[in-house]
């Protein structure tokens, strides 16, 4: 039974990954305030949970999940990504989340594995 809709070509679905990641973020830090002693644990949880969800989808991809949490204190923060890959099959998505005391930016990169 064909598991993938598009035949041989499997393309990264940024929308699915975005909603999956948003749930992970909410689950870990939703309703909390920036706490220096716990932020280490939070970033690790977010990347692990996100990665687990993505791998469970069972698609032929290698994944990299990156999470940054920054305290809101008026400092400027800029991030940029650049990728050298196969634009037909590989893709990425970035999720920005914030609450009163912190910003969270999660990026997912998916690189197709030749079957």
């Amino acid at each position: 039974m064909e598991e993938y809709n598009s035949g041989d070509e499997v393309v990264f679905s940024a929308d699915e990954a975005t909603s999956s990641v948003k749930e992970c973020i909410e689950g870990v830090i939703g309703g909390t305030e920036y706490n220096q002693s716990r932020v280490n644990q939070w970033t690790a949880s977010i990347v692990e949970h996100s990665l687990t969800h993505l791998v469970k989808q069972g698609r032929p991809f290698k994944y990299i999940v990156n999470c940054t949490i920054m305290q809101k204190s008026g400092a400027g923060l800029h991030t940029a990504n650049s990728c050298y890959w196969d634009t037909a099959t590989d893709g990425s998505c970035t999720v920005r989340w914030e609450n009163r005391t912190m910003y969270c930016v999660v990026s997912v990169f998916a690189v197709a594995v030749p079957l």
Partner: protein
Amino acid sequence: MDDYQTEEESIEAVIGGNAYQHSRVNHWTTSVVEQCLSQLSKLGKPFKYIVTCIIMQKNGAGLQTASACFWDNNTDGSCAVRWENKSMYCIASVFGLAI
């Protein structure tokens, strides 16, 4: 490690000697990633690359970043460089995935 030096040189070339400037930082992050990526692709190795760069103003705020990767441990790898000057921090990471 070659990658570490490549990253460090790229960062130094783009923002070495500059102070944090809100109007220019967008341009800096993109320059750092583009330069790193072009140096890496010049190495001509059979890898796909992902380069990320974070620049943060020094203001007393806390910053934490983490990455998790699902790949082939034998062939794939990553490298992160932390750079700073008086007014900002820069963290650049390179992920290399074997083709």
